């Protein structure tokens, strides 16, 4: 019994438990949700935004926040589309797009480390700059370009679920290893818990910040490229809805927004749970007003269930 209680105290376990319970309820109560096709498309939706959530999670654990995720997604999909349109082979185009995203990450880290701009402001400002630059360069209409290879990478289903999902799992596995088994992860948690202590105990905070924000840019970049592959074209607001979702998913996954706490593995549960909640609300025949209200309330309920801070004061 006490063991069970102990297990439930872990927010990550709670997140996974909630995810499974919600999923089972939908499968039983909503006709058609048991079909494999539906679950594949749910996982595809989760995977496409999931990359950005992976990066956001690392940033949040390190005590920061990345508000430029939406614009980085747009940047990578537009860059990739432009490169493919210009005739570059798909892998090269993807490489250029990801490089651009990592440059944004490096820019974020530079300001945060050297100018001491708070992460939230720096990333909002970076978002503005990317948005403006893309508008000026594309004059509002991004070039359309998407090869067969990219479509296949995103939508192809050689192994039951779409390739995007498998890529998501692969990136997750690598990041999981980094966060749990390597020095990188230990340092990220150390910085998130207390920057000064981390610094004093020999963590190279500057270098770590660069790695963290570039990683976040890289992950959001994959999201953008695969979104391009999924719908075959892109537009300048493609990333916008995912800014708040990426933060919500991280927190629903049991990671503390204040940094340093929560297991990285919660991101998968958080992402899928976010998508499930939206699916349920869309299937219900209610007005948009109530969909919004219930979405907010459900997030709050989940947070009250396991996102609470220790009673320290």
């Amino acid at each position, binding site marked *: 019994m006490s063991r069970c209680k102990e297990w439930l105290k872990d927010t990550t376990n709670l997140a996974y438990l909630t995810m499974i319970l919600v999923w089972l309820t939908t499968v039983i109560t909503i006709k058609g949700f048991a079909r494999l096709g539906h679950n594949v498309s749910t996982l595809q939706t989760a995977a496409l935004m999931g990359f950005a959530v992976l990066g956001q999670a690392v940033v949040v654990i390190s005590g920061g926040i990345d508000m430029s995720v939406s614009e980085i997604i747009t940047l990578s999909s537009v860059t990739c589309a432009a490169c493919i349109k210009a005739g570059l082979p798909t892998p090269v185009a993807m490489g250029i797009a990801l490089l651009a995203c990592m440059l944004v990450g490096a820019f974020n880290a530079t300001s945060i480390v050297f100018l001491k*701009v708070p992460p939230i402001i720096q990333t909002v400002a970076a978002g503005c700059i990317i948005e403006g630059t893309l508008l000026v360069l594309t004059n509002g209409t991004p070039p359309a370009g998407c090869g067969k290879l990219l479509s296949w990478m995103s939508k192809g289903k050689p192994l039951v679920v779409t390739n995007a999902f498998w890529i998501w799992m692969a990136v997750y596995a690598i990041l999981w290893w980094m966060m749990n088994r390597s020095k990188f992860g230990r340092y990220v948690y150390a910085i998130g818990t207390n920057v000064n202590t981390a610094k004093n105990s020999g963590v190279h905070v500057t270098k770590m910040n660069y790695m963290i924000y570039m990683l976040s840019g890289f992950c959001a970049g994959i999201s953008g490229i695969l979104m391009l592959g999924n719908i075959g074209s892109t537009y300048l607001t493609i990333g916008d809805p995912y800014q708040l979702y990426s933060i*919500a998913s991280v927190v629903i996954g049991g990671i503390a927004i204040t940094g340093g706490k929560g297991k990285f593995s919660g991101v998968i549960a958080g992402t899928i749970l976010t998508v499930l909640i939206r699916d349920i609300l869309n299937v219900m025949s209610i007005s948009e007003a109530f969909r*919004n209200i219930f979405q907010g309330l459900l997030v709050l309920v989940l947070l009250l269930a396991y996102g*609470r801070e220790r009673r320290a004061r």
Partner: protein
Amino acid sequence: MNEHTKSIASLTDRLPNQHKKLLSVYITFCVFLIAELIMDPLILKSYSRMWPLSLQFAPLMLCAMSQGCIMLVGGINLSLGASLSLATTIAAVTMFEGAGGTVGGIVATLVSGMAIGLVMGTVVTFGRLPDIIVTLAFSYIWNGAALLVLSKPGGHIPSAYSGFLQSQGVVPFAIIMILLLLVFWKIIKNTRLGINIYAIGGNAKASFESGIHVRLTKILAYIISGLFMSGAALVLVGQTGCGDPTIGNAYGTKSIAAAILGGFSFSGGIGQMKGAVLGAFIYIAIENVLFFSGFSSFYQYIIQGAILIAAIGLKVVSYYRRGGEGA
């Protein structure tokens, strides 16, 4: 000396310095005031230009004050845009023709603004949840609520009320309203509540240990923030003549940026309402300068982003050079 008296001592020590702290904000303000005057010299020629300008600046100024209030207690409000939309829709359905109906609507809007603050403040404190996430969740809720009240722009704002906001008197009403709220804040700031708000923003744990009622203080800060926000809604409905369930979206990020430009800090406990007002002025002046200089509006984003980083970066560097007080 216990923590409480110490924090009060450090505050009283700080208060006379407040103008020095805002020095960089003042200077930036002057630069942009001059820029605004050069670009839009009609302000000097015709005093009546003050009215549209005051209506242009006032909503963001009030939103920045609202955001600043939450930042003082160490939080951030991501739902400000959605709650602003909600407040405009409430104003549009509660106001009726005639003096009684108009005043009734104004009171209803202000009360619901404070209620919005109360609800969020309560969830943040009693739910022991971080402000950023709670306000994020509430942004969906207020959005939905605004759509419930009005499914599209509409409602009714008495023309006498809009006329009053736009009528040409001695000083634009919107400016009087901001000055009144600034005085209101000044009074609060010197009461125990105000001192507590600054104290818990600086260090919640120490404040608690020194006997400050942290929860109550935080909830009250949220209520005051809601009051400022509904003030912004009242100016907006006067300007537009209707409620609009999506009008607030644009103010979310802008209010944060304006508060930051005005000298507020994310770690809480630092910042002044005057600063928020000036920050909002600077923010809109940037937009106006771009407009009048005929720049493609696409450059607006780039320049705004760059100025945001530069303003904070320079400020932080100057703090750093002075001996690393941090920001």
